[in-house]
């Protein structure tokens, strides 16, 4: 049994619209940790919807046509389709027009500073079932005319998994989407605080927290309920989920928040949640 304390490199930085990101890596070269940080920055730069030059807005702008996509965007669009199925449609990347209509039309910092003036009488865009409006082929993808996709937390979860898999003993936290591997710096696992303050110790696992308390602005928040095409009206303020990967935990956490507390226990357990914590609206 290992007892020695591992040499740990920790690095914290902001990404994904100012979200706190952390890498804690044991017994690995600093250059590889730096490379992982660079990958986070590059990932955001390539896929942010707030920069018209990045790949995702250009793909959305080509709605209706088969657009060439990189291997990265192709994979993430497929992941979005998987997330739609796993979540019974509650995590729907096609909610972008509804999200913009709800006021999240600029970076969250800008939205908080100057919230959009929303007209109540304005028509609210419907959120179509993602598989009906998104095709992904070999090197191309197509979103239906009038539709647009946003990767949301799915991209963060996917990336946390990929970065953590490069190390034998590491924890990667990308704005609350956490992936851990190995037995931690002191060979006792990775201790993670969930949204309700409870602590869990995990080995190889994914943990994610979602909720309506983070990215919100006067009159709205960022969790769109695809059934209503509006910010979810839910009794769950925050939910943390522990699952096999950060991606799965992210999809389950977001779904649980949109779904509400009453049906969440059985639903999560049937989809691979190992543990979850809820903070309810007081």
């Amino acid at each position, binding site marked *: 049994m290992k007892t020695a304390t591992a040499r740990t490199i920790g690095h914290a930085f902001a990404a994904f619209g100012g979200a706190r990101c952390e890498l804690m890596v044991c017994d690995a070269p600093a*250059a590889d940790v730096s490379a992982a940080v660079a990958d986070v920055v590059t990932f955001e730069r390539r896929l942010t919807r707030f920069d018209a030059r990045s790949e995702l807005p250009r793909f959305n702008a080509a709605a209706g046509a088969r657009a060439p996509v990189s291997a990265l965007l192709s*994979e993430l669009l*497929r992941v979005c389709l998987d997330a739609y199925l796993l979540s019974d449609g509650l995590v729907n990347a096609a909610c972008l027009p509804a999200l913009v209509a709800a006021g999240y039309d600029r970076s969250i910092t800008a939205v908080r500073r100057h919230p959009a003036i929303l007209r109540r009488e304005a028509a609210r865009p419907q959120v179509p079932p993602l598989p009906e409006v998104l095709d992904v082929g070999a090197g191309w993808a197509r979103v239906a005319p009038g539709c647009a996709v946003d990767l949301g937390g799915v991209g963060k979860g996917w990336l946390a998994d990929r970065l953590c*898999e490069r190390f034998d003993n590491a924890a990667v936290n990308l704005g609350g989407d956490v992936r851990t591997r190995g037995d931690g710096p002191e060979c006792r696992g990775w201790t993670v605080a969930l949204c309700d303050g409870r602590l869990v*110790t995990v080995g190889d*696992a994914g943990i994610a927290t979602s909720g309506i308390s983070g990215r919100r602005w006067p009159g709205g928040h960022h969790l769109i309920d695809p059934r209503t095409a509006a910010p979810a009206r839910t009794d769950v303020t925050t939910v943390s989920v522990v699952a096999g990967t950060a991606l799965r935990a992210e999809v389950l956490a977001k779904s649980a928040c949109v779904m509400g507390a009453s049906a969440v226990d059985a639903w999560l357990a049937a989809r691979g949640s*190992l543990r979850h914590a809820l903070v309810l609206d007081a």
Partner: protein
Amino acid sequence: MTLTARALKAISSVSAVALCGVSGVLVATDPKPAAAPLRPPVNGASHGTASLVIPPTCGATGFAGSGATATLDPSLLPIAQRLGQATTATERRAILASLTASQRLDIEAYVRALRRSAMSSSGRCEDQGTGSADGGSIAPSVVAAPASTQPLINTYVS
């Protein structure tokens, strides 16, 4: 009877043209199978097999592009192949070390897409919450930690 060299050349030319013409007609009218193999049959199949033989190389190991669900810069394909075959984290890092951040992301996405394709064609599902993203070889473990423990990480709403 003697023929001049010029006459011999003319007869030879006419004969060659006639021979080619007859051969062309014979080839054109020869019955052909409706579906011919695109590639020579493999695994010792006889040449007389009429059915299409698909080499068992696409999908699971198709790093050359066939069966892949995404495309990648051809110069990166050998690296993607090595990454797909790497079994340890150290190997993965060594393979990725010489690349740019963008290339690393694309290659990892490409390898991931291939793995997904291979798993779906074999009827297996990944990321079911009972294993690691590497394919389920490591079971996730989670236990409640004592309240006195200092957390290393907080998961939170961003």
